[in-house]
C-alpha cells in the first residue's frame, strides 16, 4: 500500500516591536539576563497587562498578508499551566477568537502551485528561558524574553510532502520579512515550528492518528524530521501496528524522533477570557488603515518581475525570496538599469561574489546605482562585459562608483581602430603558426588570436572590434 503524509504546521513568530506585548520593557533579543524586565512581565502581585497597539497592528498586518480575515471582535484568553519560565503561571493567548482566520499561501512545487490553508493566526506572549547548563545546583531563569509579542500561525492539514513543508515555511518566512513584522531568525528563536503529521493510504480522505513533532530548529530539520517520522509511521502501519497519539521530539544529531511522554503533557489548559483585558473591537477603518500600509508582497512582486520585466520565473523567484536582493534590484531598475541585465548581474556575479565571501548584500559596499552605472558602461561599450566583472568586484569592496574605478585603472575599452590595428599586427607577427593555420582554412584559429589580442590590451579591446580587425588583416582586406 502507498501512504501519503498529512501535515499541518504551527509556526510561532516573535514580532519585532520595540516593547513587549503587555508592558514597556524592551523586546530586543539578547541583553544581560533579567535586564529587560519589570513588575508586569515578572508577574508580580497586583500588576496588570496593557496591550501593545503596535503588536496588534503587526498581527493584523501578518494576517492580511496571509489572506486571513480579521475578526471584528477578538479577545485575549488565559492559557493556564505551571512552568518556571512562565512568570504568571498562565500565558496570555487567544483561544476561540483569533485575530486572523481562514487565510492561505501559495507555494510553488515541482507539480505546480499548491495552496496551503491558514486556519488561524493568533497573538500571545512569549515565555522566559530556563538555563540548566553550567549551573551547579538547580536552574537559572532569564525573563528578558517573557512577554515579547508572538503570533502563532496554524496551517490547515494541507501539506503532503516534507518538501512542501519546507516551501511553506520559506513562504511564511518571506512574507513575514516583507511585512516587516519580524526578523524571523530561526537561530535566535524568533521563528519556531511544530508539526502535526499523520499517514493515510493514498486516495483515502480519512485522517490517520496525529503525532506532534517538536524541537525542530531549522527548515531543513523540519524536512528531515517529517521524512523520518513518515517512514517510522509507515513501518509501524505495515507491520500491523497502530500509531500512538503523542508528542515526539526531533533529535537533530541522531536524525530521529523520540517519544517524550511526560506528566506535563496531560494538560488541560483551562482557557478562559482574561478578565484583566477588555475585548478588542476592530472596525473596518482600522483594517483598511493596516491594509493600506501593507507593502508589496512576494507574490505581487513575482508577478511584476515576470510580467513587467520578463524575467525568467526562476530568476524572479530567487530575487523575490531575498528581500534585500529584490530591493537592490528594484532600486537599480528604478535608477535606469535594464531589468534583465540587472537581474543577470545580481543572479550570477553578485550572488557568486556574496556566496564566496559569505556576506549579505548589505555587508558589501556596492549600491544599486552602481549596478545601474556598470550596466550603462557596458551598453555604451565603455568597458567590456569581462572588464565589468572586475569592476563589480572592485566596487563591492571599495564602494567607489564604477566610472571612477574604470578611470582610475584605465580600463576604458579600446575602440580606436588605429590603435587596435597596430596591436593586432604585432599579435599576428608573434604568432605565425595560428596565422598559417587560419590561412589554410582553419578559420577557428582566429579565436586564439583574438585571445592574444585581448591579452595584449589587458582585456580593454572591444572584443567585437578585435575580431573584425584580425579577420580583415588575415584576409588581407586592410
Amino acid at each position, binding site marked *: 500500500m502507498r501512504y501519503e503524509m498529512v501535515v499541518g504546521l504551527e509556526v510561532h513568530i516573535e514580532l519585532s516591536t520595540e516593547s513587549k506585548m503587555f508592558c514597556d520593557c524592551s523586546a530586543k533579543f539578547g541583553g544581560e539576563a533579567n535586564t529587560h524586565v519589570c513588575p508586569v512581565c515578572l508577574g508580580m502581585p497586583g*500588576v496588570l497587562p496593557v496591550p501593545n497597539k503596535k503588536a496588534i497592528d503587526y498581527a493584523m498586518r501578518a494576517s492580511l498578508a496571509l489572506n486571513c480575515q480579521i475578526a471584528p471582535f477578538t479577545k485575549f484568553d488565559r492559557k493556564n499551566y*505551571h512552568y518556571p519560565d512562565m512568570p504568571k*503561571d498562565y500565558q496570555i493567548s487567544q483561544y476561540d477568537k483569533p485575530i486572523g482566520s481562514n487565510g492561505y499561501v501559495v507555494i510553488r512545487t515541482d507539480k505546480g502551485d499548491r495552496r496551503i490553508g491558514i486556519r488561524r493566526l493568533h497573538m500571545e506572549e512569549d515565555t522566559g528561558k530556563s538555563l540548566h547548563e553550567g549551573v551547579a545546583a538547580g536552574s537559572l531563569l532569564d525573563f528578558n524574553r517573557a512577554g515579547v509579542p508572538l503570533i502563532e500561525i496554524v496551517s490547515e492539514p494541507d501539506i503532503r510532502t516534507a518538501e512542501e513543508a519546507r516551501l511553506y515555511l520559506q513562504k511564511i518566512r518571506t512574507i513575514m520579512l516583507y511585512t516587516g513584522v519580524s526578523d524571523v531568525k530561526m537561530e535566535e528563536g524568533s521563528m519556531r515550528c511544530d508539526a502535526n503529521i499523520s499517514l493515510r493510504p493514498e486516495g483515502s480522505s480519512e485522517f490517520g492518528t496525529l503525532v506532534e513533532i517538536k524541537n525542530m530548529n531549522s527548515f531543513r530539520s523540519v524536512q528531515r524530521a517529517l521524512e523520518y517520522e513518515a517512514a517510522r509511521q509507515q513501518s509501524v502501519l505495515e507491520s500491523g501496528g497502530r500509531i500512538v497519539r503523542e508528542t515526539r521530539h526531533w533529535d537533530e544529531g541522531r536524525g530521529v524522533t523520540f517519544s517524550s511522554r511526560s506528566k506535563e503533557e496531560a494538560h*488541560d489548559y*483551562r482557557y478562559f477570557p482574561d478578565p484583566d483585558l477588555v475585548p478588542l473591537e476592530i472596525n473596518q477603518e482600522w483594517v483598511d488603515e493596516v491594509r493600506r500600509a501593507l507593502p508589496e508582497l512576494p507574490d505581487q512582486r513575482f508577478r511584476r518581475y515576470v510580467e513587467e520585466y520578463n524575467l525568467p520565473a526562476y530568476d524572479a523567484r530567487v530575487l523575490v525570496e531575498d528581500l534585500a536582493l529584490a530591493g537592490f534590484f528594484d532600486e537599480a531598475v528604478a535608477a535606469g538599469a535594464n531589468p534583465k541585465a540587472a537581474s543577470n548581474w545580481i543572479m550570477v556575479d553578485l550572488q557568486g561574489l556574496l556566496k564566496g565571501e559569505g556576506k549579505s548584500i548589505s555587508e558589501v559596499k556596492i549600491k544599486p546605482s552602481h549596478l545601474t552605472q556598470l550596466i550603462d558602461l557596458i551598453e555604451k561599450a565603455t568597458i567590456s562585459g569581462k572588464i565589468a566583472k572586475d569592476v563589480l568586484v572592485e566596487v563591492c569592496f571599495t564602494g567607489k562608483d564604477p566610472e571612477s574605478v574604470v578611470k582610475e585603472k584605465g580600463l576604458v575599452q579600446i575602440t580606436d581602430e588605429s590603435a587596435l590595428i597596430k596591436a593586432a599586427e604585432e599579435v599576428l607577427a608573434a604568432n605565425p603558426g595560428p596565422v598559417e593555420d587560419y590561412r589554410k582554412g582553419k578559420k577557428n584559429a582566429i579565436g586564439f588570436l583574438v585571445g592574444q589580442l585581448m591579452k595584449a590590451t589587458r582585456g580593454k579591446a572591444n572584443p567585437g572590434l578585435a575580431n573584425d580587425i584580425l579577420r580583415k588583416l588575415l584576409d588581407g582586406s586592410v
Partner: protein
Amino acid sequence: MSLCDLTAHELHKLFSSGEASATEIAEAHLERIEAIEQEVRAYVTVTRDRLLEAAAAADKARQSGEVIGPLTGIPMAIKDNIVTQGVKTTCASRILENFIPPYNATVVDRLYNAGGCLVGKANMDEFAMGSSCEHSHFGPTHNPWDTGRVPGGSSGGSAAAVAAGEAVFALGSDTGGSIRQPASFCGVVGMKPTYGRVSRYGLVAFASSLDQIGPFTRDITDCALVLNAICGHDPRDTTSASEPVPDFTESLVPDICGMRLGVPREYFEEGLSKGVREAVNSAIELLAEMGATVEECSLPHTRYALSTYYLIAPAEASSNLARYDGVRYGYRASGARDFVDMYKKTRYEGFGPEVRRRIMLGTYALSAGYYDAYYLKALKVRTLICKDFDNAFDKFDALVTPTAPTVAFSLGEKAADPLSMYLSDICTIPVNLAGLPALSVTCGFNEGMPVGLQLIGPHFAEGTLLRLGYALEQSTDFHRRRPPLTKTQEWDRNMEEAPDNAV
C-alpha cells in the same frame, strides 16, 4: 477628646488653621494604636517611622505656605493586598509573608500625592477570601465594638482601624462585599465604587472581574473626599473607566426630595435577623419622610447570585493565584525533589485552607468537560443578574437593602462552616456581579452592634449614593458613636464644638 476620633474634614480644619499639626495627629494615632491595637489587631504592619516622616513633610508643606489638600497630613490605613513600595504587602498570607513590592498601586500613589500619611497595612482574610478576617495567616482582627466578635471581612483590618481610631480612613477591596460587610459590622462608611471607577493596578488580584478598591471612612463627607482622590482612569489598567469623575463633595446636599428608591424583596427573606430588619426598615421610613418615594421591587435572579459568584470568583482566583509558585518571590518550601514537587509543597504550605479550597473550586469549574456546565453557565446567569438591576434602575435612582443579614457574629462562630460564612455576603455579592456602586452606612444598632444599610446605584452613580447617605447622616447620630474600647478617657463629642475643643 482625642484627635483620632475626628473625621478627615474636621482634622483638615484644625491642621490648615494651625490648631493641630500633622505630627500631633500622627502621634495621637500611634498612641491609640499603642493603647488598643493588642485587642483589635487591625494591622499586619504599622509603618511608624514612615507616618512620622510623612506627617513632618505635611507640616513643612503647610508652614511653607503650600496649598494643603483635604487629605494632607491625614493618617490612613491600606489593606494589605494593595501594594506599597518598600512596605511589606502580604495579603495576610504565608506565601507573601516577606514580600516587599518595588512599586506602588495607582491608588497609593494618588493618596500619597494627595498628602495621605500611611499608618500601616491592614489585616484581612488571606487573599481577600473570607467574610470575617479570621482567615489571616497573622491571626484574626477583632471588632472594636465587641472584641469577641469578628470585624467582618475580608477588609476587616481596614474597617476596624477606622472604627477604633487607628486611622482616619482606610482603603479596602471589595470582591463580594469585602468593604461593605465589614463597614456594616464595624459601624463605619464603606463604599464599593463602580467597577472600573478606581484603578486596580497594584491591587493583588483575587477575582479580576469583580475586585474593586474603595474607602472606609467615619462619615459620608470623608468618603467623598477619598473618592475624589482615588477615582479616575489609569492607563495601567485597561478595565478602568474613562468616565469623567465629578467632585463628589458636590453630592453632599441634604435634599433627597423626589428620589425614587426601590426595595428589592429578595433581600429581606429568610436569614435576615430581626434586629437588622428593624434597623433597615426604620432607615427606609426615614428616607421616605425626607421626601424620597419608596417602592418594593423584585430582582428575581438574586437567589442564583451566590452560586454564580462561587463559580466565577474561584475560577478567576485559581488563575490569578497561580503565580505564587515559589519561583521568583515569596515563600518557597524546602526539600522538594523537582520543580513540580516544589510547586506542590510551596503552595500547600504557603496557602491557608480557605484559599486552597477556592483554588480547587475554581480549577474544577474551568476544567475541560466542566467549563460549559459551570463557568460558562455562571457567566450567563451573571448577565441575567445584571439585567435585573438594569430593569430596576429604569424605575429607581437607587436600591435600599441591608448590607449583611446579621450584625457581626462571634469569632469562631462560622469558621468551621464555609457555607454559612458565604451566606453572610448574600446581600453584597449581586452588586459585584453587576459591577455597580454600593454604599454601606450605619442605620442603627442591634445587640450593641452597628447595622449597615446598603444603597445600590446604577453604574457611576456614586454621587447619588453619597447624597442619600449624607441625608441619612444629617438626621441620625449613628456615625458619631464610637466603640466603647476607644473611650479610654471621658469624652463628650459634639460635632460643632469639636474643632475648638480638640487641642
